[in-house]
């Protein structure tokens, strides 16, 4: 789900588990997409630290 909502930020590793692709601060242009990824994650696995 996160990779669908914010493909710039989330992808998957070789076994298909989700992983974060970028380090550090999320660029402002992607904030909305990342919020959407967070609010659509069925496992509540995403935490946004502000």
């Amino acid at each position, binding site marked *: *789900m996160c*990779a*669908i*909502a914010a493909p710039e930020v989330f992808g*998957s590793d*070789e*076994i*298909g*588990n989700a992983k974060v692709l970028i380090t550090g601060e999320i660029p402002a242009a992607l904030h909305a997409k990342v919020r*959407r990824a967070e*609010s*659509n*994650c*069925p*496992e*509540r696995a995403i935490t946004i630290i502000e």
Partner: protein
Amino acid sequence: MTDTQKPVKDMTTDYDIFDPEFVKNPYSGYTEIRESQCPIAHTERYEGSWLPTRYEDVVAIAQEFETFTSRQILVMPPVEGRSEGAYAGVAAPPITSDPPDHHWHRRLILPVFSPQSVAKYEQGTRDLCNALIDEFIDKGTADAAADYAQHIPVRVIATMLGVPLEMEPEFTEWVRGVLENMTDKEARIKAFMNIVQFFMGQIEDRKKNPRENDLITELMNAEVEGKKVPIEYVLGVCQLMLVAGIDTTWSAIGSCMWHMAQHPEHRKQLRENPDLWPTAIEELLRVYAPVTMARIVDHDIEFQGCPMKAGDRVLMAFPAANRDPRQFENPDEVILDRENNRHVAFGSGIHRCAGSNLARLEVRVALQTWLDRIPEFELVDQSTVTWVGGQVHGPRKCMVKF
């Protein structure tokens, strides 16, 4: 009288997942239970089960795998004399596995279903959908369930497994035998044994003639901690892929087709805004989640005030959870660009569907290809649409005209 013939007295104490009206439209029944004093219903039918209907409860049960085990995962009890595990001692890893084995059972198959891996089936799926449409496009009418949806996942899975595509009718019949008409115990056993025997034959053949780029051969050669995996594992994974990968996705595609036939505004919305596809697919999966899975209670426990006993069956009604107004605004409405959608069509926790990326791809490609070729269509007659329910919910006959 059998359990299926007695009229239902009260949904919260006597629900019948195979009641013909409930099979056709389970959502009003789920709502009745969810909004009652007893949002976790109970029935004595089919040897008894619990039915949680609120999102929060369904997710909690899915997450607590130590209390709610996966010893059995079908909504009906196994046929007598075969009470532990799945039938005939053949389990279906990883879906019937509990930790610690669950970890490697699942890890070995995850790479097969990663988004990168399933992407290679997209073009083949599109070609298949186009070939199916070629068969009926000139007739101006088709059965969107039986002429279209039904043929897509079975061929994708058969391709993945490297088994003969021309056996499609047998695969379909066997899977229906296991997951549909579940009240016919003899038919279930027969269908299951057919699947097991078929894959035992496929495995024997590969022992003599290993194949290149072949999933079954790769599974047979897979090693965990330096040791080859047991052949029962390979057999279990193969039968799981067939049983779990066909009826489920075909039901989802069928329900989406049934929806699209009645909603020209949604067809238009997708035509004008193709960027909407990913969220639209999630929304359709939320509203038409096809699968209900079961868990077996490990030890006596009071869960949300319900006195559950060791061995009790709990039905995780994902379709009910996905329409809980506590979690989703206007839950019965299809909102293709829905902002917040933590749906559980694929379950939740350690048993979350391993094939979800493949299922999403198949549903999207099936809908896109149809809407490209047949942009305008409608149901011939709502009253002739037939449904199955229980373990898997979806249309089986759905005539449309165009």
